């Protein structure tokens, strides 16, 4: 039982469920913005893992887990901005919000 009083498995369960919900959304939502949001959920799940594992293990260097999470957050922010730019650029040409409508490239 860690100091926080919550077993690491609980955190893992939450993160797994969060991750799976993200997967579900990413596969189910057709709006690219919504897909992006779902992917953010997945990244958050990953971060819970990093922090929880770091705390639980108390590995040689306790900085690593949170550090990884910080980088993930940073990257995620960049990713969102770029992704939204792509979506906007596309939407400017076509007023469809269904990611599956874009299928000029196939085969």
């Amino acid at each position, binding site marked *: 039982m*860690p*100091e*926080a*009083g*919550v077993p690491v498995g609980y*955190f893992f*369960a939450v993160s*797994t*469920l*969060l*991750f*799976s*919900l*993200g*997967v*579900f*959304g990413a*596969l*189910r*939502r*057709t*709006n690219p*913005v*919504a897909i992006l*949001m779902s992917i*953010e*959920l997945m990244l*958050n799940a990953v*971060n*819970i893992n990093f*922090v929880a594992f*770091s*705390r*639980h*293990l*108390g*590995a040689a260097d*306790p*900085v690593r887990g*949170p550090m990884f*999470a*910080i980088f993930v*957050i*940073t*990257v*995620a*922010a*960049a*990713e*969102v*901005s*770029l992704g*939204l*730019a792509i979506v*906007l*650029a596309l*939407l400017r040409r076509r007023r469809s*919000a*269904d990611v*599956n409508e874009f299928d000029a490239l196939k085969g």
Partner: protein
Amino acid sequence: MNWPLVAFFFLAGVTLYSAYRVVVDETITHAALYLAIAFVGVAGFYALLGADFLAFVQVLVYAGAVMTVLLFTIMLSDIREVRGLKLPLFRRLTSPRWGAVPAALAAGLAALLLAAFAGSALLAGPEGRPVGLGELARALLTTYLVPFEVASVLLLAAMVGAIVLSKGEGER
């Protein structure tokens, strides 16, 4: 009373429900607002785990910056999800009526990952300790200096990319 555990369950309930609404809510604005709640919930987990600084960053970056950008985009684009029914097979498999396949995949993933966790023993190391802001900052500027610098390049790249792509054709 094990307060951390209570807090954990509360946070878990809020976070997972919000996440669920993000995934299923037809109205994109609502979904975005639920996402903000989920972000805050995750920040709560960080706090619970003693990573206060991270919780702060989470709220700042996610609930603040990311949410702003998301909402702006939604406002700008006036997106409404269109759910056609006469769709080819692959799209039908992903459409809400047939949402069974994504759901099954997600459920399968969750089940398999949880089973994996249950079936393996984690290293039983000594109990970890929360990491202070100073320690983190020092590490960021020493050990993780290169990734830190690279991350800044990355942000620059993303910014350049975003600008270039949002500029209309012919604008320079």
